[in-house]
């Protein structure tokens, strides 16, 4: 039993794989940034009156339960034109919506609990010194929340890069989609999947190393 390796068959797809890698990174980066940024206002809403926070909390729990693939498909196949009379999003935008919403649900809850865990004596003594409310938020609450949520968020961001492969199901030209196309013409499936694996190793490993450094940084350890 033997297998004849032939990566050269994938040669014509070199550029396509490179572009696919770029889209993978793009999907991961944009959904991470948007998910984290939108997590902040959501976290603040979760701390409001129960009329707001209870339904929002339930919605967030529901979103966390739904698989990312279903969120992406839902964002893409939602009957926008029939219900709202507007055209649906492109596969790229639908994928970004699905990935962002999934991360948003996690971020909002993490940030909310981090805000609640800011030591009360730090906030009280800053107020007692004459800090204004925005100064308390900027200089006491914000740094504390960032230090609490950064390690878990870096794990979410790495996860987003990998989950972006789901966008291939609706035809976004990222790495996995390129591999599928290449396979269908060359029939070199093992080589194609190994190429995709290598792309992810190259994209994700630096992030993992960075996350480890951040976790060990003295700034983060001084809690």
């Amino acid at each position, binding site marked *: 039993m033997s297998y004849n390796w032939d990566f050269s068959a994938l040669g014509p797809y070199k550029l396509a794989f490179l572009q696919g890698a770029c889209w993978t990174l793009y999907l991961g980066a944009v959904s991470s940034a948007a998910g984290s940024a939108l997590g902040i206002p959501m976290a603040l809403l979760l701390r409001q009156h129960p009329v707001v926070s209870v339904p929002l909390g339930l919605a967030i729990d529901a979103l966390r339960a739904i698989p990312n693939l279903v969120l992406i498909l839902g964002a893409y196949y939602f009957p926008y034109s029939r219900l709202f009379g507007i055209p649906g999003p492109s596969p790229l935008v639908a994928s970004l919506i699905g990935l962002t919403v999934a991360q948003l649900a996690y971020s909002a809850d993490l940030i909310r609990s981090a805000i609640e865990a800011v*030591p009360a*004596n*730090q*906030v*009280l*003594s*800053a*107020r*007692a*010194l*004459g*800090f*204004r409310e925005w*100064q308390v938020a900027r*200089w*006491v609450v914000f*740094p*504390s929340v960032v*230090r609490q949520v950064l390690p878990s968020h870096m794990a979410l961001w790495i996860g987003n890069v990998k989950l972006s492969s789901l966008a291939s199901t609706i035809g976004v030209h990222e790495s996995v989609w390129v591999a599928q196309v290449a396979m269908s013409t060359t029939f070199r499936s093992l080589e194609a999947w190994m190429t995709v694996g290598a792309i992810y190793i190259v994209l994700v490993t630096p992030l993992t190393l960075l996350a480890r450094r951040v976790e060990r940084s003295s*700034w983060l350890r*001084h*809690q």
Partner: protein
Amino acid sequence: MAEAPVTTLLRVKGLKAGYGERGIISAFDLEVERGTCIGIVGYSGCGKTTLFKALTGLMPAEAGDAWLDGDQFLTSGKLTVQPWSLRRHITLVTQQPGLLPHKSVLENLALPQELVLQKSKEEAHAEARTVAKLVGIDAELNAFPSEISGGQLQRAHLARAMVLHPEILLLDEVTSNVDPRTSEAITDALDALRDGRGISFLLVSHDFAIVRKLADRVIFLHKGRNLEEIPVTEFPGGFRDPEAQTFASERVSRRER
């Protein structure tokens, strides 16, 4: 030589606050002259913390009037100035140190000056060094709060309020949870601060020795009221109110036992 006229710096009339809290303040009156220290003693839950929070707008008052240097800042329980501008003049030193853990001691002492007094970094650092020397933490300026001892932390916490030069410092048990030597260093620093800069203090403490050393007058706070006020020379034996007498003798005998 004629004595300098004694001026009332803080006047509080009929203060009521803390409804629903553990310590309630009601019908509380107080006058503090510039450069003096008022010791406040009483049982736990007598309303000391509520008093301090209400005077700095950290807790709403329900009734009462208060003046700082003749300017009214509390009218019928309502603050008539922005709370943060009031706290520049009347600064509470909380019982628990609340230094920012991700900043060095030096940065912790500089930041409030930069934010509250709009000082430049250089000015703020210079003042931080001066005060750090005064309270004896100048060797710890570059350390982080997690790297210094509890006593040093308490001193840094106090220094953070001192660098702002408020007119009145409200000291809530600042020498609890520290060793006797640190307690003495803090007391000496406060003494120096009062003599050097004419700052007034309201001092809540369970430690009668510190009250005796720093205070000019001593108040017995009981059930939220200023039940009796005596000069420190008569403290703790000179209270005439029976409740105050019981409290003082219990404390003294407990210490002797």
